[in-house]
């Protein structure tokens, strides 16, 4: 029995702070106290070791009835909280992905598959026994058992389990829409599919691993930042460790608890505690846009992109060019031209063809009948024309001007070049001229106009402000391409593009040090997708394209790339902002803790107690509490990312230095003072 179970639709995004996610995160933050887990993060590992050590001192002081047991307890508790808060941030960031992974796993039921043997015999086997290269057949209402390419037939497929989009899509053999995904469901018709992924390596498996973060590795930038943070931690470790003998010399003995408190306050715990949450949340934001990034590295690279290659059709212009005008040759009536145009496109099912029919109808067609007896001549890349052969021997063609002229000449006609200026004018204005001919006579020119997608110019301006150069890729001639490029506001274009010239362009950009991003869906895009630094494949595209790319857009929306670039930038900015904030915080903490440490040996040191904190204990405790609470306070920022406005790097740098650098110096002075006032009011010190 085949699985007839209704597939669950992939759940739409939950809120970041969904209750279920928070509950689970609380549990996870305790589990993450495991030192083996903490060891991956040197900064927080030091905090945990410090927390454990102060706990031991608390117990010792408690047993010894030492007066400092209460203080030890407070410090130990807040150090544990510091670790827990960081764990919590990470757990919340992971939460949404985990919930999604669970939902996806439910769709991954083991189904049966109808395996097609070499001899054509059909056999029912478990879907898990399918291997690369096997063929299976799948019909309406059945679940596709494995990833594959359609070999025969066409079908409508419900892919909502993966994309969340309920409208069915068409999957057919050949061309760029041949890939099917295991776990999706055929709604109509029957297809034969060749398996392209072994069990465990399927798209759904990868997707589960990705959203769950199981395959998550530290990205290059994250590693570099970790090295910086570890270096700073070592520096502060030395500064605090040597303070113990210094204090001995000065006769101002310091307890280990106080030294640990100072150490934890100085090492960059804010960024250290939130670093992995920032990375996970960044990947998650990409996921919420319905894009599957194969690695965090790809998202990071997106933020660095210098050159964006955009296919004209579908990205910059609406996929379909529209016929807007028919210009007739001398001596041909407009009416007659409309009739011929109508006939030429009657059997042409392409959007362009349909728009010619629509235009002809608007112009008033005489002979508006379908012609069952006519023979349709489809478009091909070799002839570059299409048309109709009527039973009476009349041949009607429309197509690229040079092809039509050759065709007319071959038929014995002698076309004049009176339309040449018109063709030139249309091409120059960004349109596509189609020549229309009947037998040996050139009837006129159909003006196909490219329609720009709305709001594209603003988006390109935004990209320019980010410092990204946009290049439009089109098969059009340079004249047409230049006009559309100008109209759309892209920086450059590649006309008469072939897969080879596209590849060449990518390599040229890369050799001059630029990072290139592109989108693609066809099999012949695959090499370019693999070569580019950020390659986004459309989910509607071929398996080859999806494998070559490092991201797959489940919505198949080529303009998504722009959002991915912004997420990549936001990711780095959030790290930079919190690093700056964390380091700047140290200034106030020095002023809180140092006078507190030495004021007993050197009462004169109270001059440096600029915040006028109540007692040495309350000063140290306030700094530690501030240090812990600031992590919680910044969780939303870490998970949502800092706001990104493209306004030039220097402007952004200035604003962020002011906000996170200067702000990072000022905020803890206020925060520590406030906590001290509260502690004093509650008589806690």
């Amino acid at each position: 029995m085949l699985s007839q179970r209704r597939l669950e639709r992939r759940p739409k995004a939950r809120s970041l702070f969904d209750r279920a996610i928070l509950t689970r995160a609380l549990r996870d933050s305790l589990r993450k106290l495991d030192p083996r887990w903490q060891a991956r993060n040197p900064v927080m590992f030091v905090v945990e070791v410090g927390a454990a050590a102060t706990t031991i001192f608390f117990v010792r002081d408690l047993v010894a009835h030492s007066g400092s047991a209460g203080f030890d307890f407070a410090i130990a508790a807040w150090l544990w909280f510091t670790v827990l808060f960081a764990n919590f941030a990470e757990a919340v960031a992971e939460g949404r992905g985990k919930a999604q992974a669970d939902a996806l796993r439910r769709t991954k039921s083991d189904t049966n598959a109808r395996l097609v043997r070499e001899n054509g015999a059909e056999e029912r086997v478990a879907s898990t026994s399918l291997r690369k290269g096997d063929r299976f057949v799948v019909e309406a209402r059945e679940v596709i058992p494995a990833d594959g390419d359609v070999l025969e037939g066409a079908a409508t497929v419900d892919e909502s389990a993966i994309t969340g989009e309920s409208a069915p899509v068409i999957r057919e053999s050949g061309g760029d829409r041949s890939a099917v995904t295991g776990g999706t469901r055929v709604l109509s018709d029957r297809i034969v599919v060749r398996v392209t992924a072994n069990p465990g390596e399927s798209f759904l498996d990868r997707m589960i691993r990705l959203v769950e973060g199981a395959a998550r590795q530290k990205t290059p930038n994250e590693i570099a930042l970790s090295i910086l943070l570890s270096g700073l931690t070592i520096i502060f470790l030395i500064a605090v460790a040597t303070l113990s003998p210094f204090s001995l010399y000065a006769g101002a003995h310091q307890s280990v608890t106080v030294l640990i408190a100072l150490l934890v306050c100085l090492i960059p715990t804010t960024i250290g505690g939130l670093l992995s949450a920032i990375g996970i949340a960044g990947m998650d934001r990409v996921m919420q846009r319905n894009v599957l990034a194969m690695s965090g590295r790809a998202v990071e690279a997106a933020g660095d992109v210098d050159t964006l290659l955009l296919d004209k059709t579908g990205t910059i212009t609406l996929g379909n060019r529209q016929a807007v005008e028919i210009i007739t040759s001398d001596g041909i009536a407009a009416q007659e031209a409309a009739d011929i145009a109508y006939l030429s496109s009657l059997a042409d099912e392409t959007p362009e063809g349909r728009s010619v029919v629509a235009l002809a109808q608007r112009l008033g067609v005489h002979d508006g009948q379908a012609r069952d007896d006519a023979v349709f001549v489809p478009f091909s890349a070799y002839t570059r024309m299409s048309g109709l052969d009527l039973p009476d021997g009349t041949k009607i063609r429309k197509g690229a001007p040079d092809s039509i002229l050759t065709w007319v000449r071959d038929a014995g006609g002698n076309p004049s070049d009176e339309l040449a200026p018109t063709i030139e004018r249309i091409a120059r204005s960004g349109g596509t001229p189609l020549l229309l001919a009947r037998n040996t006579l050139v009837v006129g020119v159909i003006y196909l106009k490219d329609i720009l997608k709305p709001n594209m110019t603003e988006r390109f301006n935004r990209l320019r402000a980010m410092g990204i150069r946009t290049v439009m890729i089109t098969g059009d001639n340079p004249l047409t391409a230049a006009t559309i490029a100008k109209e759309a506001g892209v920086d450059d274009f590649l006309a008469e593009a072939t897969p080879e010239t596209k590849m060449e362009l990518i390599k040229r950009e890369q050799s001059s040090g630029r990072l290139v991003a592109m989108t693609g869906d066809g099999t012949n895009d695959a090499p370019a997708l693999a070569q580019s630094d950020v390659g986004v494949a459309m989910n509607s595209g071929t398996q080859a394209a999806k494998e070559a790319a490092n991201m797959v857009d489940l919505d198949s929306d080529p303009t998504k790339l722009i959002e991915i670039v912004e997420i990549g930038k936001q990711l780095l900015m959030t790290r930079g902002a919190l690093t700056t904030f964390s380091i700047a915080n140290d200034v106030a903490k020095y002023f809180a803790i140092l006078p507190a440490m030495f004021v007993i040996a050197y009462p004169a040191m109270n001059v440096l107690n600029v915040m006028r904190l109540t007692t040495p204990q309350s000063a140290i405790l306030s700094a530690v509490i501030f240090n812990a609470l600031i992590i919680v306070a910044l969780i939303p920022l870490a998970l949502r990312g800092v706001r990104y406005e493209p306004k030039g790097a220097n402007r952004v740098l200035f604003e962020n230095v002011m906000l996170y650098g200067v702000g990072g110096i000022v905020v803890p002075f206020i925060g520590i003072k406030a906590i001290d006032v509260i502690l004093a009011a509650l008589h806690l010190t």
Partner: protein
Amino acid sequence: MTGFGWLQAVIFFAIVLAVTKPLGTYMARVFEGERTWLTPVLAPLEKVIYRLCGVRDAEEMSWYAYALSMLAFSLIGLAYLYVLLRTQKWLPFNPQHVDNMSPDLAWNTAVSFTTNTNWQFYSGETAMSYLSQMAGLAWHNFVSAAVGIAIAVAVVRGLVRTNVKTLGNFWVDLTRCSLYVLLPTSIVLGLFLVWQGVPQNLHAYQAVHSIEGFAQTITGGPMGSQEVIKELGTNGGGFVNANSASPNENPTPLTNFVEMLLIFSLGAGLTYMYGKMVKDTRQGWAIFSAMAILFVAGFAVAYWAEAAGNPIVHQIGAAGGNLEGKECRFGVAASAFFATVTTDTSCGAVNSMHDSFTALGGLVPLVNMQLGEIVFGGVGSGLYGMIVFVVLTVFIAGLMVGRTPEYLGKKVERREVQFAILAALVTPVLCLVPTAIAAVLPAGLATLGNNGPHGFSEILYGFTSTNANNGSAFAGLGPNLFYNLLTGVNMMFGRFAVAIPALALAGALAGKKAIPESSGTFTTHSAIFVALLIGVIVIVGALTFLPADSLGPIVEHLLMLRGKLF
């Protein structure tokens, strides 16, 4: 503080500013192998040196070949000086019959001069033969400066070059620096100093009877030739114990002014050379500005503290600035100025006793060195030390604009951060750890001149100065076996543990391609970048030492305000 004191500072700074560009242009030409006006004279000599030493001057070196050559050259030089000091008694040019140096002091001195530190646990008058001074110390004064500049040039090449593994040829850079930059300047200005009254002779010290009837010994020796390179190469080791406070080494106000200029000139010139070599002089000026701001801030504090003097001394009726330990010919302003200049750089020559400065006045030289001597800095080492900070700043700032950080088109990634932070770790570790050891060991406390916070400052200053390869001292700290050995090790690591990661950083950068600038890249010559650079230097570089400093000069100052001295 007086108007005249500040006027001197303004004139000084104006002259430094004026020589920066010509010196930088000249050095850029020298190290790019272009023709200079000295080429006709020096090129044949250069060829002969290469032939004699078997240097294949067209051969390029990878960063580690460069580092290994530099290390080998330094260690052989160290061994040579050690042997010289241990045998000077039997060698010529020893009219005073100076004895051989003890093994631990010879080790300390040999390391000290090899590493451009010139920390002196001896008195030049009684412990050095003229041969040791000329062939040992002066030799190292030249080549240790040339080594520093060579490393800086190699590091700059790492930023300039793309997609290559090599940073130049160490032997060529060393030779060209000595021949084209150090020697000509030293000859001309050495003669100037001799004209001003610095002795330059080889005969024994002269016993004279003063008109007051006292018997006095006047030291002599080849001082002029050594004095000039002492400042120019930011070496700082005095021919005599009193260093530039002595009338022999520093006879007139003019020599005092010129000596300070010499200390800053190459460091300032190197920033322009840097801009020239990276083909954007604004980059050089940005670094110059950051240095200049830190310099002015340091001088202002030191001058203010010394001019304000000691309130306890004021109470007993001696008004005015702090004149303890100062040469009266120079006074408060020129002494505070010299102290700032000599510790901004890795010079360490002194014209007054830093130990006798007020607590805050003494804090300034200490902090200058704790920053890693990047305010114009040691010749070469100041520039590459600053580049390490620039790389760290670029990394943090770059993230804030949402791109993998780039400096001069080079991406700052894992390896660059790794080497930069490794270099930045050296100063805190090597200042603080030995100080901690000395502060609790009897051997460390045995030779302290003072107790309390001031005694602590003496230890901290000693290890900070040796680690930073400065060589100036809070003279209260005396030599013993413990300090001879430990400061020797400290000087060694202070030099090479920064230079080698800096070269590795350059090697990593040289292998990268350069990314063309776009509006997505922030400029590294803007005011905001300079401000951020200073912020990183102060917070990462200086605040690390705040706990230590607060137990030394800071608390000493606070206690002085309460009427307690040490």
